[in-house]
């Protein structure tokens, strides 16, 4: 199949998927009963309840309610967040910035460590570093993120006192403006190096915790694709013409081994996104994940719906982009949905 045809096919399916997701989200929000409950108090008469239902269109049949809700979403109205006591869209940007900053930091940790370790192990196949790396990557896939974070806190916060929890020091926070909501960027824009270090300092433990599982996945993929590439004919050819091993590795094998690894990096995005929920709870990070956890525990439907919709759209987009990038990078791939 041509890349263009494949792309068109994927893009055509996308709206179906989005409608499907929105239907699931809407259904879930109505399984627990009518959302009228959040507007009610004990003193209200049945007439008043009916009036509220009418005002919010909750007396309409469910399909109409769905259309009203979906229309609102398309116009940028995501409802009222009970846990934040504000419209969802108003609270969202700050939380998103916090989560973005954490995720990017975790991705940096995971990509550098993962590619480095994977190359190191792959080049030393079946020797001790390879075995140790294998143990590391299997552990990463089995590690409860929340437990790993707590272990880091016990060692580095409680006993050693090296790293703090939370997102920033209160006085440091007050000392600079926050136009982007990304504290590292904000501090650099303000030219305040102390604030920058404070932001980094707070990022270290949560980023390592969040990135750990992804590091394991990337390491494993990098290792196995490097091992595969090293067995290819072109590597033999490069060696035969007398190219030093270091250059064979760097210019040929590693470059090709990176192609499948890039795909895995893209696809592990969902993994990272899910991890933010617990990491943000443990490190008291004021992002989307902790917001969702609060909403879940307090039955705040609007917040949950907004979160699930947002992550799914993001997840679908990233996966699509990854597939396209992969298809361009590696023409040998036979595309098929």
């Amino acid at each position, binding site marked *: 199949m041509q890349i263009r045809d494949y792309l068109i096919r994927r893009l055509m399916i996308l709206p*179906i998927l989005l409608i499907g997701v929105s239907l699931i989200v809407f259904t879930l929000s109505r399984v627990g009963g009518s959302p009228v409950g959040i507007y009610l108090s004990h003193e209200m008469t049945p007439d008043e309840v009916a009036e509220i239902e009418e005002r919010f269109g909750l007396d309409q049949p469910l399909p109409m309610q769905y259309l009203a809700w979906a229309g609102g979403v398309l116009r940028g109205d995501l409802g009222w967040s009970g846990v934040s006591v504000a419209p969802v869209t108003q609270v969202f940007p700050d939380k998103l910035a916090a989560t973005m900053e954490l995720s990017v930091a975790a991705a940096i940790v995971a990509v550098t460590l993962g590619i480095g370790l994977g190359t190191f192990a792959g080049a030393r196949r079946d020797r001790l570093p390879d075995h140790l790396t294998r143990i590391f990557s299997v552990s990463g896939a089995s590690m*409860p993120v929340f437990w790993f974070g*707590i272990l880091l806190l016990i060692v580095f916060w409680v006993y050693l006192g090296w790293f703090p929890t939370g997102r920033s020091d209160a006085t440091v926070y007050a000392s600079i403006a926050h136009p982007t909501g990304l504290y590292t960027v904000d501090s650099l824009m303000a030219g305040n190096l102390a604030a920058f270090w404070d932001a980094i300092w707070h990022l270290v433990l949560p980023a390592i915790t969040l990135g750990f599982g992804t590091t394991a996945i990337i390491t494993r993929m990098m290792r196995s694709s490097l091992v595969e590439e090293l067995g290819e004919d072109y590597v033999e050819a490069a060696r035969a013409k007398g190219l030093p091993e270091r250059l064979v590795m760097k210019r040929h094998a590693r470059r090709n081994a990176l192609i499948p690894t890039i795909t895995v990096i893209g696809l592990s995005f969902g993994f990272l996104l899910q991890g933010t929920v617990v990491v943000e709870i443990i490190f008291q990070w004021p992002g989307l994940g902790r917001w969702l956890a609060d909403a879940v525990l307090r039955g705040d439907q609007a917040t949950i719906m907004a979160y699930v919709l947002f992550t799914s759209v993001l997840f679908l987009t990233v996966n699509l982009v990854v597939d396209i990038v992969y298809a361009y990078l590696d023409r040998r791939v036979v595309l098929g949905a």
Partner: protein
Amino acid sequence: MTDVIDTPLTATPVDGPVAVRVRRFLELSRQVLRNKTTLAGLIVIIAMISMAFLAPLLTTPNVPDPYQMPRDWAALNQPPGTPGHILGTTSDGGDVLYGVIWGSRVSLRLSVIVVSVTVTVGVIVGSLAGFLGGKIDEILMRIVDVFLSIPELIFALAIAAVLGPSFGNIILALSMVFWVKYARIIRGQIIHVKQNEYVDAARVTGDSRFRIFAKDVLPNSITPVMVQATLDMGSIVLVGATLSFIGLAEAGLAEWGVLVSKGQVGISTGRWWASTFPGLMIFLWALAFNLVGDGLRDVLDPKTESR
């Protein structure tokens, strides 16, 4: 993305007298167990399952509900090594060892139920799609795609949140999310297996469609499902514990995620044990099933070494 799992695993039909099958099974077991890490994983699994079964003998079950943590109000926050509480106690006098042991029972129940339900549903849906093909395939696979559009943990979290906090609801939520993978795997397998000559041969001899499916297609498509199911025995406990850590199980349940969450409060004052031991159990459980699942895959399907 190329779907590596789509490749057929067995080129020859599994058929023949019982003795052949037993011999084949023994040969496979021998190959799987030759790998030391797989063997280590298997030993951990056997230890955990034994612990789950022997829980009432290893500890005095709490009355009336043994799945609730017993409270020893005379021994709050005791460190490991305290007489009667080898692994210490929680902030409300729950014995950490009791939680570790009964937690294995809770996890075993969780993973066995969820894996059985999801494999069954997934295999039925995937078989219908793969074997019948056409419109049915198209519709079923679009539904599968929609389910795959929401990240697993987030989806399960949203479902469990709607159903309300209880461990039973966590089981239900995970069952609703995890079947999709199996549907995809089995569909891909069946489409490949269907093209084999022995299937054509069976058709020519006049076997009914159902008979061909049950006798020739399904048995030759099931191997990657078994590998995935083994891996999921571990990851379901991981996700389940994450949900209960977030607060979606009953408070006081003797479950590992609940215990880690409870113990987290005390770490700032140096009480590390109440989180550490139950968390270690989750890790070991997931690790053991991952090792065995990997070992199975290496032997049954060497082509898809890693995911």
